[in-house]
């Protein structure tokens, strides 16, 4: 377990956070320069929530992202090259250029490639968590505690002392909580005490919809009570707080203590996507949140502790910029474009079925 109160490990949190910021800002610029197509969903301002969570992932833990999880993926280990390949829609991208550039995922890192359906991935996280429970049960680590009539057991099981399960990580926005998928997932996970951590990035807006237009309760975390799980609202821009609270939830989940809903209060600095001028918000609100920049919050804590080290920061920044520069050079000069007919060969794992699709296409255009 990392102990972020130690300087060295604090910088281990800082590095992915800064990398996310620099990568994100650079991609915004590249998009605006017309160097890649589609659009771009920036998550600048939300790095602490993402990185503070993502650093708790272990191999085999599924990350079910929404559309602003660059930071969680960077924390999980995605490289600048893979990210660039993704937004430039190159053959080397994690999804082989099959998806929209901004629906990031990475099968190699157990990160679900999200569909454009808001909230749909939240349910997958509960399903993966159910698989982790079955894994432990098949290994004989789970004892089922039947009720006294011996009829029902749902959620009533104990994990062998010392055993740890995989944990599923689910990210979603405040807007996504209005969807039925959110309810069905948390309901299912609550019933069976599944090892999943639900991280709601409450950035006050869902495209142009205000929080109060999607969420009837004062806090998103108030809903946790309805699903029989703990809920907590925290400062999503303080990476130390996020890392600590998520860490506790993940530990509890792995040890059979069930799911947690963590609402991280944060803010996206820019539009919903790069084509959104975000004129539905006041300048004052944006300015107020920029003062709570996750990087500045980190710095203030480190300064308080007397551990802010300009030299380390400069070194980290230089290394990241080098990685990004290299990645951009590579993606623009050396990467490969996907074959225009590549989409015909990947719809099914059963190759004969892809041939069915290909034959139809060849009949049309061949």
């Amino acid at each position, binding site marked *: 377990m990392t102990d972020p109160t130690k300087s060295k490990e604090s910088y281990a949190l800082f590095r992915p956070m800064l990398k996310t910021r620099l990568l994100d800002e650079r991609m915004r610029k590249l998009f605006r320069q017309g160097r890649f197509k589609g659009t771009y969903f920036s998550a600048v301002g939300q790095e602490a929530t993402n990185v503070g969570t993502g650093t708790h992932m272990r191999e085999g833990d*599924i990350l*079910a992202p929404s559309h602003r999880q660059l930071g969680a993926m960077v924390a999980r280990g995605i490289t600048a090259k893979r990210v660039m390949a993704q937004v430039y829609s190159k053959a080397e991208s*994690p*999804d*082989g*250029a*099959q*998806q929209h550039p901004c*629906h990031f*995922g990475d*099968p*190699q890192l157990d990160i*679900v*490639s999200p*569909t*454009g*359906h808001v909230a*749909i991935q939240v*349910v*997958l*996280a*509960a*399903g*993966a*968590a*159910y*698989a*982790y*429970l*079955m894994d432990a*049960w*098949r290994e004989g680590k*789970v004892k*089922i505690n039947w009720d006294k009539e011996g*009829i029902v*057991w*749902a959620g009533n099981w104990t994990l062998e002392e010392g055993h740890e399960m*995989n944990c*599923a990580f689910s990210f979603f926005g405040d807007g996504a909580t209005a969807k*039925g*998928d959110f309810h*069905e*997932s948390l*309901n*299912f996970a609550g*019933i069976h005490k599944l090892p999943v951590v639900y991280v709601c990035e409450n950035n006050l807006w869902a495209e142009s919809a205000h929080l109060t237009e999607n969420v009837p309760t004062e806090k998103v975390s108030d809903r946790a009570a309805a699903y029989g799980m703990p809920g907590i609202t925290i400062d999503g821009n303080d990476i130390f707080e996020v890392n600590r609270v998520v860490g506790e939830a993940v530990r509890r989940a792995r040890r059979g203590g069930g799911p947690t809903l963590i609402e991280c209060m944060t803010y996206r600095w820019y539009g919903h996507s790069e084509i959104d001028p975000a004129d539905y918000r006041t300048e004052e609100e944006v300015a107020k949140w920029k003062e709570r920049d996750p990087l500045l919050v980190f710095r203030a804590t480190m300064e308080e502790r007397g551990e802010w080290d300009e030299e380390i920061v400069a070194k980290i920044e230089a290394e990241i910029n080098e990685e990004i520069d290299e990645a951009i050079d590579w993606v623009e000069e050396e990467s490969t474009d996907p074959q225009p007919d*590549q*989409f015909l*060969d*990947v*719809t*099914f*794992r*059963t190759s*004969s*079925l892809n041939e*069915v699709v290909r034959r139809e296409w060849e009949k049309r255009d061949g």
Partner: protein
Amino acid sequence: MAEMTLIQAITDTMWSEMERDEKVFVLGQDCGRYGGVFKATAWKSQEDGSPDQSEKMYDRFGPLRVLDAPLAENAIIGGAIGSAIAGYRPIAEIQFMDFIDCAMGHIVNQAGVMSFKTNGSWCCPLTIRTPFGGDIGGGITHSQSNEAWFCHAAGLIVMTPSTVEDAAGLLRTAIRCDDPVLFIEHKKLYRSVKGEAPTDPDFMVPIGKARIHQSGSDITFVAYGNMLIRAMEATRILQKEGVSVEVIDPRTLWPLDLDTIVNSVCKTGRCVVISESHSSYGFSSEIAARVQEGAFWNLLSPIRMISAPDTPYPFDPAMEKAYLPSVETILKAAKGAMEND
């Protein structure tokens, strides 16, 4: 080998696949303790083919592998997909096909695109079993045949068995398949269709292979489920009148075994497609369109499309009777086709 019902072959196949592979599990509403509303997840067969009621699937495999899921179709299908990407082979039951629309997003935009959106890195070995079809007095939301929705979507295999042998062979193929399969079961056939189940524990029916249910030379019928049963009744009557009918059960609705159907129509020159789903953009129109493409120069008369009206499904017994294509409907179409020579 003992005779058994179609639903028993379904249960037995799940049972044997669960014995074979501990990653196979079942989830659905009332599937566990109750054994499912149709008892598809209840008992395996005994020697005489009847259910051995001494042990339920739930007791044999445990409550985690025969999960009593909440009343939440998104959680059932989305949860099954999540478990599939974490290494399992879920068999999700949707209690009635009429409720499958609740989970549409997960089936169409998650299961169906899993392989595609990961460029083939991940797949989705999910089987969705669901009872479809009418003629049971089920009314609007317990009678629907919505298979065309899924045949129209990308990335999904759609199958339906109309014999005991196919129930076993197709379902085994579905469970072992690495791609998502929608496995629809006509509820009228569950206990009315009986036959000998294959004894081979690895017996499989290939995807996309139609079965010539009966050979003939004058006219081709294409149908599955309860409409196949009615098509066979019509066939027996026509046979007596000296008309030789070839009856084809496609078994897999996507992908279609067009070759078998087209070859048959090239031979007979006539084709009647019978389906109990809505007429517009449905099974009958699909087959008709493709058959005319493949067999145009061999057609002796226009292809007849028989389907249900584009209305919701009525409850009242007389209305239900009027709603569904009957044996007489099929006979009339067949005679029309024969006279158009």
